[in-house]
């Protein structure tokens, strides 16, 4: 009996069915079905945004992009401390392993991967077509936006349109800036037609955002390296479209400069925000670190990451903009130390102080990637450099920015001042330097106008100097070692 029982047992166990080794994928999210529903497509779009905003990992929610644009003449960093990786940019000695530019590189490509996945699949998605088109429009915007940052930082880059990985990607070659810009323009053109006039949420683009970035792209294409000067007219036209329809898109120039940088975490979005990456402290990696600690001096518990260059501050025109831009006395209590007597002997950027001077590196404030006055200055400059020179609208656009920033009593510029078109355009460029100081704008202006060498030559001798003479090779960063070591064909 016992024997029978035992034999039976063994037999039962031995009869292991083949299905015992089948993989059980319960709870696994994979395959093409993920994107076949509108909810799935929306989730993938949300994932694409992650590339642009993952605090301390990649994207723009921490001061990596600021560090990478330190080669301009508005901002510098600590000569010692723990800022070696920041100095690499200010001293034109960027290593292929720099983690700051690397965070932008990795983040933009992660966003591109997510956007590609949406773009390549949205036509097969079932759901409300209007919503699906908006989702796809946002994806086009994200891809165009990301490639725009990449090509301005790195020049020739791999141009990837696939959402899913394949081995063939390991050996692809770099595409030229011209090829990259073709895609950027195509993407933003798609986005401007597919996006609604009203943003779905503060941290998303609308049609106006796409047009504004397209205008900025045209302006850049007209300068170095492509020098397609015919693009000035396109830039002006596209900027004008945004200006004329600003109410439709919800864009406005705020009455005072100080309001723009009130930096109140209770406010989700300001009227000047053309496109922003929102920050929220309650999510995983979604808080913003570009405010607070990073631009505060050690005297106030800050990190001394970046502060104003001496001559830039000296030459900055007086007015409400200057007082709202800079912090010239340090101390959160009653004792104030003038910047001249501070440890780093530099004025700092008040712009990135949080309301109430909170000392933190995580706050629910957005990284505004373009402000409305940026559009005004695009128009003014592009019109001046394009066919026919500056018109009254160009003067109006410049004056709106200029008069708000400068001391009361400053006169508006008029054609009667006798500026040539080039002089007017340069006046706009200079106004942009003041208006967008420490906002990652100056560096790109210097590059497209090939003024990096001149601007750095004019720096105060007390500021950090380039390690070696600046050449055109310094206009772009070397591609990250992490990628060139896998695909040596990129070198």
């Amino acid at each position: 009996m016992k024997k029978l029982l035992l034999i039976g047992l063994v037999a039962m166990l031995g009869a292991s069915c083949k299905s015992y080794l089948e993989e059980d994928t319960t709870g696994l999210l994979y395959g093409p079905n993920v994107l076949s529903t509108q909810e799935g497509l929306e989730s993938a779009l949300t994932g694409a945004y992650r590339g642009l905003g993952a605090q301390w990992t990649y994207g723009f929610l921490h001061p990596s992009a600021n560090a990478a644009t330190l080669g301009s003449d508005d901002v510098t960093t600590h000569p010692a401390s723990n800022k070696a990786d920041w100095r690499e940019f200010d001293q034109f000695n960027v290593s292929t392993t720099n983690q700051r530019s690397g965070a932008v590189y990795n983040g933009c490509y992660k966003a591109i991967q997510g956007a590609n996945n949406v773009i390549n699949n949205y036509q097969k998605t079932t759901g409300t077509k209007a919503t699906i088109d908006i989702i796809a429009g946002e994806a086009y915007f994200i891809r165009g936006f990301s490639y725009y940052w990449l090509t301005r930082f790195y020049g020739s880059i791999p141009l990837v349109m696939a959402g899913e990985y394949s081995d063939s990607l390991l050996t692809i070659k770099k595409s030229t800036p011209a090829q990259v810009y073709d895609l950027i323009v195509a993407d933003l053109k798609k986005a401007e037609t597919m996006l609604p006039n009203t943003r779905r949420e503060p941290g998303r683009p609308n049609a106006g955002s796409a047009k504004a970035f397209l205008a900025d792209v045209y302006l850049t294409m007209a300068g170095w390296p492509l020098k397609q000067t015919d693009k000035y007219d396109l830039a002006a036209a596209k900027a004008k479209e945004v200006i004329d329809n600003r109410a439709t898109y919800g864009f406005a120039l705020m009455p005072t400069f100080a309001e723009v940088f009130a930096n109140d975490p209770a406010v989700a979005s300001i009227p000047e925000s053309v496109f922003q990456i929102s920050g929220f402290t309650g999510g995983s990696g979604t808080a913003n670190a570009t405010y607070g600690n990073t631009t505060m001096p050690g005297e106030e518990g800050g990190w001394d990451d970046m502060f104003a260059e001496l001559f830039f501050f000296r030459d900055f025109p007086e007015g409400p903009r200057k007082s709202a831009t800079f912090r010239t006395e340090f101390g959160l209590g009653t004792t104030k130390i003038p910047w001249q007597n501070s440890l780093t002997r530099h004025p700092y950027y008040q712009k990135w102080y949080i309301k109430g001077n909170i000392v933190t590196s995580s706050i629910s404030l957005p990284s505004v990637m373009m402000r409305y006055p940026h559009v005004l200055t695009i128009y003014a400059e592009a019109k001046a450099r394009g066919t026919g020179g500056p018109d009254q609208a160009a003067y109006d656009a410049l004056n709106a920015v200029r008069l708000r920033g400068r001391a009361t009593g400053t006169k508006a510029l008029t054609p009667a001042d006798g500026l040539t078109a080039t002089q007017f355009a340069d006046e706009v460029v200079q106004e942009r330097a003041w208006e967008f100081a420490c906002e990652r704008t100056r560096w790109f202006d210097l590059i497209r106008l090939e003024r990096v060498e001149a601007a750095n030559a004019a720096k105060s001798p007390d500021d950090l100097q380039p390690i070696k003479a600046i050449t055109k090779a310094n206009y772009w960063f070397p591609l990250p070692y992490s990628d060139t070591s896998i695909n040596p064909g990129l070198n």
Partner: protein
Amino acid sequence: MKKNVVFFVFLLLLCQGYAFAQSARVTGKVTGPDNQGLPGVNVQVNGTTTGTSTDVDGNFALNAASTSSLVFSNIGYVSQTVPVNGRSVINVQLAEDQKTLNEVVVVGYGTQRKTDVTGALTAISTKEFAQQPVTRLDQVLQGRAAGVQVTQTNGAPGGDARIRIRGANSVLGNNNPLYIVDGYVGADFNFVNPSDIETIQVLKDAASTSIYGSRGANGVVIITTKKGARGLKVNYEGQFSISENIKRYDVLPAGEFAEIVNARATATGSGLPFTADQIAQYKQNGGTDWQSLVFRQGTGQQHQVTVSGGGEKTTYLISGNYLDQNGIVNNSGFRRYILRTNINTQVNDKLSFRLNLWGTQSKNHNTLDGGAIVQALAWAPTTPAYGSDGMPTFTDPIGSVYRNPLDYLYDQSIDTKRASLNVNGGLNYKLPIKGLTLDLQYAVNYLNSQNLNFTGKRLSNGVPSATRYSTDQVTLQNTNNLNYDVKIGNHSINAVAVLETQQYTEQNFTATASGLRFPQLGYDNIGGNAAASVASAFNKWTLLSLLGRVNYSYKDKYLVTAAVRRDGSSKFSSANRYSVFPSVALGWRLSEEEFIKNLNVFSNLKLRGSWGMTGSQAINPYATLSTYGTTFSAFNNSAATAGVILGNPGNVNLKWETTKQTDVGLEMEFLNGRIRIEADYFKKNTTDLLLNVAIPAYAGGGTQTRNVGEVENKGIELSIGGTPIDKGGFRWETNLNVSTLQNQVVSLGGLPRLGTGTGVGGGMSTTNEFMLMPGQPLGSYWGLKYLGTWKPNEADEAARYGRVPGDPHYQDLNGDNSITTDDFQIIGRAFPKATGGWNNTFTYKGLTLNVFFNGVFGVDKLNYTRAAALSGSGDARQFILTEIRDYYRQGNETSDIPAFTRTYQPFTQSSRFLENGSFVRLKNISLSYNVPTGFIKNKANLRVFASATNLFTITQYKGPDPESARVGSNTDTAIGIDYGSYPNSKTYTLGVNLGF
């Protein structure tokens, strides 16, 4: 007599049909060489099945015919046959068996006489660690078995240990050995209570491990736990310990620190942070000693109670263990409970049942690296620890850019709670065919593991948050084992056939809450929050195995073993699902040959050799599929939206990683076992190496698992043991083992190199710290070669790099006048070339002294802790170690510590911070005393002991502990980095052991 009463009561209680026979009654006592009673000695009436075993004091009683003989036998002792000759009392003293010839060793799915073993395996005697305050299995293994390398990488109580048998084969998979506890495959060594161990065997070569097939490649540790024996036995063991830092970093006193900070500010053109008055005050009043705020004297205690007993047919053992240790870092600790019971019953001559229950619970509290330990060397000694509000100072204006070490200690809880239950039962049945036995075993292993993290308001930028991660893992195992054992003339055959299945299911969920309304409740009540998110996952794999093994020996002289296992795993797609792992081994017991016997030198001499294959399925389930993960993005200032993001691309072509191993061994024993030497040479080649190959960021980043390349491990193991002195009651037993390991990447499937990093060096490392390259070992450090500082006579050359004399000078490998990643090269090795242990036990009467050294040789460590505190990297803005006193300046141009300049660009990932990590350590010294039996009225056994671990260390390493590192035990590609590692401690223990 009292004892016997207890004994009989127990017999009655157990009611196992004990019957008295008609023959005469014989009683007596069996003692060992030390005149102490020997429990558990088998006493049998010669030629019959009548028998018994001795009780806890060595007493026995049975009925035997006056003309019969009694056979007394016990493992480790020379058996004696004593004629009864009409006596009613027979006392016997057994001599210890110096020869290990008759030892039975546990091998996979069976046992073997040690003499018949053809594979390379090491048995660790429980005697070797009985005198030591070991609390976990890794401490048992460390230094005691040739070829086994144990590194306590995290010195916290309950901290991580890396255990490797014959090196590391796999780059991707974890190279942890496979642990078998009482037949359950894949047990967690953390939960093994050393006091429960009866035997422990380390299987090293393929002949021994191929029987474990796809899971045997990293070696196998087989543990059997203590079983009950007849007669009630109660044992209590208590230990109390205190522990402290082995060493701390030398940091500058506040005044001098302030002077150096000022000197640097002057040299680089910044304002002076400190006035002369302040400096004078610091010199007078001192500053903050952050290390002494972070570290403390730890305390610990362990209690262990074992109760065992049983009758003729049924025996049981219950053991309970409680361990509570407070670490040397403030507010860190570990607590563990283990309860183990087993019961065995022999129903009749043929059938027996057994059941093991093993329950554990443990909690690690703040036993992690980094955090406070890193910040203690980043915060300035000039910054007060507490502010005027009595709270820790919030920011450091001079030193660190990050949080106060005290906030790391007290404003967060990073805890792990684990509870497990292992139920393992079986039956053994002798089938009607002689020598054929069927053994069935079923096991259920349940583990609940919870990671509980809380970050308070201060550490979290004002957003207190908590995360709870809980995983339930259930493993079901069934093993059906047919064993055939027969001896016909000169031919002995032992054969095993097994069908085994294992199924693992994991279900986990995570809940994260931020903006906690009631942060005082920590992670225990997270419902009140500003934002929360949840996630869950399901994971499952199955393994189906068929295996067989035949041992054949002729005249006990010529030995052959052949084994094969076929494993099927659900982790692979159907084309690659099954794999076969064969092995064969030969042994020749030369000492049985006349020509060797005639030499009269060897008491045992055996030559053996083996070849075989083992595998690794070192991948997670679902690696063949490309899956999405959950992520979050914010679209406003008040919520985060969940989305999905593509994870690592899957690879449908994944297959098994296979290790082929060849082993040649020689075993020698002289002077009847008084000297034993065992030497092995092995070579392992792992092919179809599973690697996580990095995917470029432009293609989505992350990694893809692929079968590429080959790794080779080879080495020599030598173990010398013996009893040099055994005279006049004084005995010295010693065991020395040394093993070398040469590890090499043979190929990477065409890739010229492959970086592997850690991510531990937040802000310290700029790229992967390790590089896999054909011809180089795993764990090769990748970085710049530091040539010292630029010297005054090299000013022109330095200028070509934009540098000035005093700046760091790195080797410019490609001579392009700039230091880039193209100048990175292999600068060191993280794998030691050799490891060893030397264990000595001296006994004299009741006194036992144990002295145990272990050593690690030929290894480098990348010391990021020191680098951060000496280079202004990571969170540290200033230089805090006393070494900086020697910085390069006018008049001190020979210094290789860089000057304070504006052109200073440090690379921490360079040979400047690579240090020799070799060490020899007095791992344990302990003295114990067996209090004479008569000393205590009720004849209990009392032993007291005192011991010290890590009492001294000989090393050139500049950190506090060469053994601890930052990377966990599951990887071998990125070991050896020290960045705020929780250091091992010096521990003093007092213990008492009471048995009756």
